[in-house]
């Protein structure tokens, strides 16, 4: 077993444990912090995969923006179910069975696929994945259209989010 495999196994188990804590812990602020741990584990997985840009974006966008947004939302909506009462609905066992069945089904499906045991070709020496990715994102022969559509979607979503969360009663609408 090589060092890379050991690192991957440790990161994977830590990430899965953090994921389990996200879905089972009672305190939602703790759940959001466990989500930060899980996202960081995924970022380390990207580093192992040589996807350096994705790792940095994972830390900046997911941990820096999305997880903090979650913590804000938890704190803004935290009056009524402050950790008391059941955090799971009464059909939680059904969800657990369905999750286990999904994992089993995916595992079974992957076992029957011949590409499963594939090992990576060695990473090309001097290959600059980040500049390649930048070229792919802005070249018309590449993926400039999906990129622009994603940015328009992001603008529309943020405008919509501000509109939805805006409170007309005590908002400072210039009235």
């Amino acid at each position, binding site marked *: 077993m*090589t060092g890379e495999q050991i690192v*991957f196994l440790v990161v*994977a188990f830590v*990430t899965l444990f953090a*994921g*389990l804590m*996200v*879905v089972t812990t009672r305190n*939602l602020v703790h*759940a*959001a912090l466990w*989500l930060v741990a*899980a*996202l960081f584990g*995924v970022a380390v*997985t990207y580093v*192992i*995969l*040589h*996807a350096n*840009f*994705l790792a940095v*974006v*994972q830390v900046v*966008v*997911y941990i820096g923006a999305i997880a903090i*947004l979650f913590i804000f*939302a938890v704190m803004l*909506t935290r*009056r*009524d*179910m402050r950790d008391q009462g059941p*955090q799971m*609905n009464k059909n939680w066992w*059904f*969800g*657990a069975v*369905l*999750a*286990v069945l*999904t*994992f089993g089904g*995916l*595992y079974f499906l*992957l076992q029957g696929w011949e590409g499963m045991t*594939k*090992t990576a*070709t060695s990473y090309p020496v001097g290959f600059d*994945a980040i500049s390649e*990715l930048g070229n*792919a994102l802005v070249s018309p022969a590449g*993926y400039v259209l*999906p*990129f622009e559509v*994603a940015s328009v*979607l992001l603008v529309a979503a943020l405008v*919509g*989010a*501000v509109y939805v*969360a805006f409170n007309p009663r005590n908002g400072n609408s210039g009235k």
Partner: protein
Amino acid sequence: MVPLSWYLIFAAALFSIGMFGVLSRRNAVAILLGIELMLNSVNINLAAFWRYGDVHLMAGQVFAIIVFAVAAAEVAVGLALVISVYRSRRTVVADEIDMMKW
């Protein structure tokens, strides 16, 4: 080298955990946390297929970036909806949000 199967099984497990969270939590914010886990597991798969296929084809990483953008948009809209519902109904329990108009 880590075999491709380890990544795929890891991502499948993370996806299942996120799905359990989506299906069984009562708090709407916790349901969104589960969705984040599911999106991340998909991204691991995309990056792994990029690495184990031809690294000169950047489609896997580009698609992962699109997923990042969509996840950010989804979280912004979802949390805005949760806060808006909380403001008018004083609840974030998904079972109790059962009216189309208030």
